[in-house]
């Protein structure tokens, strides 16, 4: 394998064209208990991270939002309420199992009038240029094979002045917190995964994929290189999670 044809899948090096299938297997496996695991792993704090993301989005009534890797629809539900009857939210995910769980959950909760569901790859978004007021991707970018391609695609579909939000695990700002976080990620999380979903390997991948993801400053630079302006990030929970925001000029 040449270096150009390879990428990382957690700590493993794999062929670029294989990564998407490997990631798909992970999410097919975890889809049904995804929300429960999020609550268990983060102690419910993920709801605060997502709430902050919604607030920073600045989404208003009548606007259009693209929720990439929207999975089980946490953010889509909130965006749906904000944009109202005159707006629209598109819940996009590359994984059919996650999309099914998300669609069922949203419909069962009464969210469906202004939501479209689409199975799509973040690197090749099938929407016209300048379509959305806001594009959001929460805990999904680290699973994308070519992040630069995905960022360019997101820029294209945003309207001028539109906002990109990337909520993702990042690098803790404090050495002690980082050590505690490593212990928790590699020793505890896979065990919770095994207990709850009988799938230790998927949560091992989760911990590894977080370590391979660009840190706060690097991701900000990638956004600038992709063409976004006014790029900044907000660290949360000591930098364990960061929200990056950029504007399409």
């Amino acid at each position: 394998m040449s270096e150009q044809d390879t990428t990382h899948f957690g700590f493993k090096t794999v062929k670029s064209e294989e990564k998407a299938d490997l990631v798909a297997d992970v999410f097919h496996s975890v889809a049904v208990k995804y929300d429960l695991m999020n609550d268990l792993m983060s102690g419910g704090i993920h709801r605060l991270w997502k709430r902050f993301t919604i607030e920073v989005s600045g989404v208003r009534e009548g606007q259009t939002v693209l929720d990439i890797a929207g999975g089980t629809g946490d953010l889509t539900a909130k965006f749906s309420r904000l944009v109202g009857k005159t707006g629209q939210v598109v819940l996009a995910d590359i994984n059919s199992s996650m999309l099914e769980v998300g669609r069922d959950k949203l419909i069962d909760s009464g969210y469906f009038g202004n939501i479209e569901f689409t199975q799509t790859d973040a690197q090749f978004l099938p929407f016209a240029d300048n379509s959305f007021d806001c594009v959001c991707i929460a805990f999904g970018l680290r699973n994308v094979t070519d992040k630069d391609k995905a960022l360019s695609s997101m820029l294209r579909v945003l309207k001028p002045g539109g906002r990109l939000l990337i909520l993702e695990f990042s690098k803790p700002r404090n050495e002690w917190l980082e050590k505690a976080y490593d212990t928790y990620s590699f020793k505890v999380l896979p065990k919770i995964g095994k207990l709850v979903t009988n799938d230790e390997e998927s949560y091992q991948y989760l911990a590894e994929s977080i370590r391979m993801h660009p840190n706060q400053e690097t991701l900000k630079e990638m956004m600038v290189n992709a063409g976004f302006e006014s790029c900044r990030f907000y660290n949360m929970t000591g930098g364990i999670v960061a929200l990056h925001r950029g504007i399409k000029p």
Partner: protein
Amino acid sequence: MSQADPAIHTAAVAALEAAANQTLKLDPTAYQRLSVFSGQVFHIDCDQPKFNVYLCPEQSFLRFTAYYDGEATTTIRGSGSEFTKLATSKDPGGVLINSNIKLEGDSAPLIELQKVLSELELDWEAPLVESLGDVLGHQLANIFRALANWGRKAKVNNARQWRDFILEEARLAPSRAEVENFFSANNQLTQQLDRIEGRLRKLQRQLSELG
């Protein structure tokens, strides 16, 4: 935005939002009355303790956010004690004028909002009945109402009894009538002294003209 962890601020705001909306549900007309403010944003910037929140009334929900990048309809800045006074005052306009609260934007919607919130009639019995059943819930609500009434009457009686004790029995302070008499006598004396002073100056002038 402050450098503090946004997740902590968001948690506090989320808790406030939950508490406020749970309380509003106790008045069946609350959301209908608040819906007139739908689309408006009220920014409360407290400097003591340091806290920042935006209120965004919706059709059937009062949304609180920690972050808002648009322009607020009204921004008020002040201390926690001043906000408490404003929230509980029967004359919010007067409080705004006489306090150190700084206001930006349109004050009218804020004053209207304060009036609507202060006129809410919260039915505290409803959640009790829902949890404990009609009979027990109602009995418990009656007990709470009786306790609240007793508390109000006790407060008024205590104030009256302390006033009577200080004025009439311990004589630690003069009564209102005594104070008014004292000031009246004081004023008369001042006027008499002024007249005497005037006559003395006149006599001195006359003496100096003769001499």
